[in-house]
């Protein structure tokens, strides 16, 4: 008679499915609660943002202008945005871990006041090796890179010490610390960090978020 073992196996399997389902559901809920708490630290309205506000996939990048990995990720992220027009937006938060990076961040933020932020950022990234040799930014070598962008550099010099720029940068550094960002670039896609560092991991995270937001 194989009926009793069959019945017992089925009963155990059903109860096990219930227990596993409960655990999975609760861990997912805990994850989303955590993501919500993280979201408050991640999303600051002052952060420079590219992409439409109604885009449902929001990448927050902790960025250091003197970091060469950040430079190589920049076109990668830009390509992802171009491949999914209107669906992705990117916010830049600063984690200036390199020497004098904070100086460069202040310069960048000052160019924002003249509406030339992305141009200045791209110019600086393109010439990164010339102003940030040996992973240390040289303030004097930064300025020549900004020539030819139509910027009022004198105004940039004044604006870069504006109290709001300093305040926002301090907030970024505090948030980075609270979010345990210890290396740049660090990406959060709709609140989720990369499981481990790499292009594929970021791509997977973004496609996952896209699939969830636009199914």
């Amino acid at each position, binding site marked *: 008679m194989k009926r009793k073992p*069959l*019945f017992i196996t*089925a009963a155990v399997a*059903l*109860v096990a499915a*219930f227990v596993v389902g*409960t655990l999975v*559901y609760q861990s997912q809920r805990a994850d989303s609660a955590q993501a919500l708490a993280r979201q408050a630290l991640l999303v600051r309205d002052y952060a420079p943002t590219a992409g439409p506000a109604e885009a449902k996939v929001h990448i927050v990048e902790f960025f250091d202008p003197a970091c060469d990995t950040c430079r190589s990720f920049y076109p990668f992220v830009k390509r992802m945005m171009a491949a999914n027009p209107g669906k992705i937006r990117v916010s830049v938060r600063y984690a200036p871990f390199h020497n004098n990076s904070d100086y460069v961040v202040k310069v960048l933020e000052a160019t924002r006041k003249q509406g030339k932020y992305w141009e200045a950022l791209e110019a600086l990234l393109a010439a990164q090796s010339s102003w940030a040799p040996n992973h240390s930014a040289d303030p004097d070598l930064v300025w020549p890179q900004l020539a030819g962008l139509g910027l009022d550099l004198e105004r940039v010099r004044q604006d870069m010490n504006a109290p709001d720029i300093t305040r926002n940068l301090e907030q970024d550094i505090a948030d980075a610390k609270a979010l345990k960002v210890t290396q740049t670039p660090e990406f959060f896609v709709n609140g989720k960090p990369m499981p481990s560092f790499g292009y594929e991991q970021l791509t997977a995270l973004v496609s996952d978020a896209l699939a969830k937001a636009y199914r």
Partner: protein
Amino acid sequence: MTTNANEYGATTTRARSHDLGWNLVFACWLIATSSTLGALFFSEVMNLPPCVLCWYQRIFLFPLVLMLPVGLFPFDPKVVRYALPLSMVGWSLAFFHVLLTYGLIPESIRPCTLGVPCALNQIEWFGFVSIPLLSLVAFSVINALLLVTHYRVSK
């Protein structure tokens, strides 16, 4: 000799139909138990409060989880006679509930006004699968299998 052979044949036929009956009732138990655990998952894990009609359907579903195994060990075809009234009433309630969620029953004869409105779909999978629909499908299959058991085994 011939009488013996006939008796032997009758015994094997009965054994076979009992095998079929056991499997059908076992299948009913699987459906009833999955549905019960599913219902508990919705209310206890996902914290979706059951509406009044849901509770009535639960009343006719949950006992099957314990009643059907009693008829399985040892197999007693009469279990159909005890289980079918429950699943029939459960089916009627589920049918009524589904009509309600599709808006096919007018407001005035809705029996539930307290707590969660029964016409509210708390779950919508693939755009059409609601909890009452799951309940209706489960009760329909249980009823069908129990009826097959009744006509193939009891007679």
